[in-house]
């Protein structure tokens, strides 16, 4: 069976869809759909880059394994979304990851935030996992079959990420005095960047039933957060939301450093194959 045929049989929601399959698709997304795929792909890529730092530095070997797993899932999602986006402009996942400049990225500020201590990383994971789960649970119904297929794979994985972060919120929130203080501090540092996740942009209007309107995810997200934090005897931080701007290419100061590290080798040898 040729690669092209193999991919045709694989692209069904729920079946493992590989970036290599997406690269072989005959249909190309329109510009708006590709822009939307960049949003989701860049979030996953930058988060994976942040999480990758923990591998060999986690508080326990089991956590090295768990955080590596989450990072791997995210990089998988990033590769699929970026490959699909790139089909619109004849660019590969690596062209997009390694050869775009900072203002061309579309990641939200939340995923760019520093790892901090383990509690801060868990706070960020908690928000991202709950948000991505709400998002992908709806994106499986997208009228764009490729986005729906990527979401169908991703939602199952993100469900585990949700479970992982919730378990840690409970443990740290109710473990020791120190862990509780650190968890509260971690949530407080993370919360300013929650609002940006749910901000609508004109692009969403263009997408119609291809994408998911971010503002519609806020209520279920808040409800889920409330349940977990109440059980952990923690509160939703009362801090002003940051204006964000990632979807417009206006990023936190952190992204430049993240990209410097991510892109350094690829840019040192432009055109090389690895």
């Amino acid at each position, binding site marked *: 069976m040729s690669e092209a045929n193999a991919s045709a049989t694989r692209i069904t929601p729920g079946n493992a869809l590989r*970036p290599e399959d997406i690269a072989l698709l005959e249909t190309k997304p329109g510009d708006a759909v590709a822009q939307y795929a960049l949003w989701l792909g860049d979030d996953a*890529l930058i988060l*994976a*880059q942040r999480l*990758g*730092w923990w*591998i*060999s*530095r*986690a*508080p*326990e*070997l*089991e*956590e*090295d*394994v768990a955080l*590596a*797993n989450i*990072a*791997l899932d995210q*990089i*998988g999602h*990033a*590769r699929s979304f*970026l490959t699909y986006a790139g089909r619109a402009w004849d660019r590969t*996942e*690596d062209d997009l*990851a*390694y050869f775009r400049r900072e203002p061309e990225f579309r990641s939200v500020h939340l995923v760019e935030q520093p790892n901090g*201590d*383990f509690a801060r990383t868990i706070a960020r994971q908690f928000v991202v996992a709950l948000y991505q789960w709400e998002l992908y649970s709806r994106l499986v119904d997208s009228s764009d079959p490729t986005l729906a297929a990527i979401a169908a794979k991703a939602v199952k994985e993100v469900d585990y990420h949700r479970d992982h972060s919730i378990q840690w919120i*409970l*443990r*740290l929130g*109710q*473990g*020791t005095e*120190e*862990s509780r203080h*650190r968890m509260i501090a971690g949530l407080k540092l993370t919360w300013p960047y929650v609002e940006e996740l749910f901000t609508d942009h004109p692009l969403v209007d263009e997408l119609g039933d291809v994408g998911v309107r971010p503002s519609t995810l806020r209520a279920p997200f808040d409800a889920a957060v409330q349940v977990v934090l109440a059980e952990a005897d923690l509160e939703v931080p009362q801090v002003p939301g940051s204006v964000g701007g990632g979807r417009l290419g206006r990023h936190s100061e952190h992204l430049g450093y993240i990209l410097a*590290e*991510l892109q*350094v*080798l*690829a840019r040192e*040898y432009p055109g*090389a*194959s*690895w």
Partner: protein
Amino acid sequence: MTTTAIDPRSREDHDAAGERRFDELIAQDSRIEPRDWMPADYRKSLTRQISQHAHSEIIGMQPEANWITRAPSLKRKAVLMAKVQDEAGHGLYLYSAAETLGTPRDQMTEDLIAGKARYSSIFNYPVLTWADIGAIGWLVDGAAICNQVPLCRASYGPYGRAMVRICKEESFHQRQGFEILLELANGTEAQKQMAQDAVNRWYAPSLMMFGPPDEDSPNSQKSMEWNIKRFSNDELRSRFVGMMVEQIKVLGLDLPDKDVRFDEETGRWQHGPLDWNEFKEVLAGRGPCNAQRMERRREAHEDGAWVREAAAAYAEKQVLKTAQAA
């Protein structure tokens, strides 16, 4: 972390029947299991070997993790993350195997952090370029496989079984290393040079991974009598050289060793002289990265202490809650 270590002392009192049984099992090339009687030296020697192996997996995560954030393609980044993750998994199986001999994982970790325990010296060399990730997979994991495949038949059951799984994953690691080098060797002139430079730097240290020459390896004899070790250091090293000689041709690179030849008389591959003085220096803590590796492990362990304490406290509270509800 909770560990259920078995108290070994109760079974080390002289037990004539137990000793007979142990000798029989070894003579039949059968397996010794955790609850069987075993000589104190066997237990001690295995605990040392398995825990050193576990520590090597854990310290060995660092040099490769060093390139995760800079991997030059997303696919390579994913593969490298998965590889370093596998190493954490190997560390976990091996610590578990060692625990069945009576030493808790916490104790082994403390010994590592305190500098009392050893790990494979190879990880004290720096990983300078992306090609080093290829060379480590091909040469270092390749040498590890040569060493470890015979350990799948080690007389101690939990160790042998852990090694079966580890060897399967290691062979993937070696192939991905080879693939990285192959891509570089067929790439631009600069990439090819990068690959050759990495092979030049990792070749001799990987040959030294098999341990000192047979005449200087006093522990080996006992280990072979106990069916833990099956082949001598030099024998395994020679096999490894033979494999590399063929594979380097496919890469189109050169082994940095003019003296490699097959000796018809001994039936073994010969290699050029190795700098055993350097080996001893690195082993003694004077390698380029010894201090850095230890510091990073210590830092991760100490920074994580409050997390482990919180997890333990939470688990205890949950137990109390369940008891109260009952």
